């Protein structure tokens, strides 16, 4: 499954960069995030509970911020597993200054396994897009608050 897109954030790249690197802010914006604890440099332990109407599942795993080139790009690596299956993916995030704003471009690929792969196929991509959209909506709002 591939996910890509871009969002315009009303903050300078440096601010956006700081935001992405702020675990408290990330935890706040990640839908269903129950825990995001540092686990070594640029690495976090994550627990999330994703839900879509009746469908729900808890996942525990890790988030790693790699290949960091502040304030331009990084590689987000994540891995999680839960009873419905596992998710593993990575995505490149790039920040481009657009006047006072920042265009954040993301492009990533995720693999899913287990029950969600076997039966969730029809909706999994749309659900993922929704989660990403929710994240950026919140993230954008939080950045604006800070600005």
């Amino acid at each position, binding site marked *: 499954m591939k996910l890509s897109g871009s969002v315009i954030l009303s903050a300078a790249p440096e601010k956006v960069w700081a935001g992405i690197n702020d675990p408290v802010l990330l935890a706040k914006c990640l839908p269903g995030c129950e825990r995001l604890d540092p686990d070594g440099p640029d690495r976090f332990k994550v627990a999330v509970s994703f839900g879509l109407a009746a469908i729900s599942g808890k996942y525990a795993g890790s988030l790693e911020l790699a290949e960091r080139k502040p304030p331009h790009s990084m590689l987000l690596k994540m891995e999680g597993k839960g009873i419905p299956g596992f998710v593993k993916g990575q995505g490149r995030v790039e920040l481009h200054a657009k006047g006072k704003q920042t265009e954040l471009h993301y492009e990533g690929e995720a693999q899913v396994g287990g029950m969600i*792969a*076997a039966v969730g196929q029809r909706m999994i991509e749309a659900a993922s897009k929704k989660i990403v959209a929710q994240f950026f909506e919140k993230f954008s709002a939080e950045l604006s608050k800070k600005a």
Partner: protein
Amino acid sequence: MATAPAKKYIGMPLKRKEDPRLIQGLAHYADDIALPGMLHAAFVRSPYAHAKVRSIDTSKAKAAPGVVAVLTAADLGTSIGMVPCAAVIPDMKSAARPVLAKDRVRFVGEAVAVVVAEDRYGARDVADLVEVDYEALTPVVDPEKAIAKGAQTLYDQHKDNVAFRWELEGGDVKKAFAQADKIVKQRMINQRLIPMAMEPRGVVAEYKAGEKSLTVWSSTQIPHLLRTQVAAMLGVPEHSVRVITPEVGGGFGSKLNVYPEEALLGYLAMHTGRPVKWIESRRENFQTAIHGRDQIDEVELAFKRDGTLLGMRCRIIADLGAYYQLLTPLIPTLTGLMICGLYKIPAARVEITGVLTNKMSTDAYRGAGRPEATYIIERAMDVAAGELKMDPLELRRKNLPSPKEFPYATPTGLIYDSANYQGAIDLLMKKVDYKKLRAEQAKLRKEGRYLGIGISTYVEICAMGPSSAMPAGGWESATVRIEPTGKVNVLTGASPHGQGQETSFSQLAADMLGLDPEDILITHGDTQVVPYGIGTFGSRGTAVGGTAVYKALVKLREKLSLIAAHLAGAEPGEMIIEGRKIYSKKQPKKSVGFQDCVTAAYVAKSLPAGVEPGLDATVFYEPTNFTFPFGAHLCVVEIDAETGDVRLDKYFAVDDCGNVLNPLLVDGQVHGGIVQSVGQALLEEAVYDDQGQLITGELTDYAIPRAADIPWMTTDRTVTPSPVNPMGVKGVGEAGTIGATPCLANAVADALAPFGVKHVDMPFKREKIWRLMHEGKCAAPAASPSSRSKPKAKSAKRAKRAPAKPKSAKRRRAR
């Protein structure tokens, strides 16, 4: 001795004796078994196609309430042997399956731990508490990539994923191709299928420590073989193991196997001292019961200008999955043996590469290698007809052996027993106005409607089989016992699970003994009751199992004739057994009632000299050859050009399975087989994505045919008795899936001919067909999860401009 029996019931379309109990819910399946103190097992299965197992933490699971045992491979140690594989191919690499994966998992669904709890819900809950730490490895999914240089290997001890290479050649193939005027080539895929028995697998095991006896109830097609193997896997004496098959709700080959769960449940019963039950979920059935087909075939046919076949070459890549189940490596070799179909091909060469991939094992699924062979030759013949500009029927007729040429030897080393292929085609043509159909097709094409007419002819290999050709014996046993009150028990080593032999064997016994089918009880599937048998598969139930019953009945008829002649003062050789009487043909007044004769045998006061008391005969029948049923099918499909939807409109089948015991059962087998072919041709495909996830993992995504998909089927028969067995029967259990699949594929290709399509791979899903009809109007192919399920651009050659343009189709931007 006795004269030939009258045919009163044999050949009658008697309704099945089995059905009242099945229809009324009175039958007992594995899940109906409830034993005092019974525990329930649930399996922890890998969500990864390929991974190292770093560690398994069972502590939480063990602490959960209601848990009796949680076991991993480490706990088992060497207590249970590997899953057996009966097939041996020279230089075959090892790929034996452990009952629980130890340090590596090789397909999604492979069990890594088993949980035993007081109830089924609890067992399932606790399975989720077992924490397995996996380290993902690169999954090997595509069999062609799997054998490319540098591919990730499934087994560290093997340098590559080639399980074996197998070659077969007969005749001078080089010369045939050198002399050819025309060589026709085609690549085709026979996609992976899920057998989908209505009842999933199920096992119950009970151990009686005092008697040291283990009873295993399993929904299987091979109770005796299972007993031998489970005893060996558990290291217990075979005579202390009893296997019972309860009612079996379909198998289609998926229960012709020895599975880890069957041995494990036995072990768990011994380990816990309590009965244990496991019922497979549908999802487990998808992932862990054997799959069928899965070949990539490249075929070449060499022709003379006039359409005479000179030779054939075929290269087969068979995707075996991750491990060998009972017959895994053997199945593609059956394709090799039958590759020539029913044509006179003087020279043929087959090369098979068996490939290990991170998927469930393939094995025998209804037809087991023969549907693939028939598909290859029958599709290739249609492609050839197109290239030779001949009518497909005409090309076929040109290359058939005549009935006088039988027994007919193929270049692959088989001896076809008997046939009249022309007769089957002639009868089919009486049922169908072929010229009129072609005229209608031409007319409708002008209106933008796309009819396809498909023809297939087939020969298949049945009655498996002579023991020389079978890994574990190819005979069958039967015991017939006439009880003191004249009621008859027939014990068969066959293990019918839907075939209806409780009915047909009753008909046979009734006629042979001058009784009625109600007087006969057929018993099967209990190793403690029935003498050792081989089981039901390979269309052998009637031709081998039935022949054993027949031979046991012949023995009893001889004994009855001796006793009756003695009582009536007649000659034993002239006795007629019918209508509950045994009488002299020459002097009918010399007659004894059947019951009087039976009573005499048991009270044993007036038996002829040298005749033992009792009426009991056991036979182990060894066939001298396979049998080779055949047939000719024709169907008509129509494709909706706007959607790509393929609708099956008409189906005509002429099959020849030799003599018929019960035409209703034969029709049922033919109907069911055709429907299963509709499944393969139009709907079914087990799709693994590039990570080895089975994404058609439930019936919401894996489409099987339903009643509404099937039109009225016109069936008929020719009868060419087999010389192989005394009843002249051949077998019909798999004929439908063998003959019908290429028929449907040929019809679809025929419908698409105006679009320049030469071949399209199954299944004929709408979007794939729609794209072929609208090439260029919709740019990118579907974002298909597996490269195998993409529209086959390579194999489909299309006209530059499709003749019909539905109004709605227009160019779309690639996404």
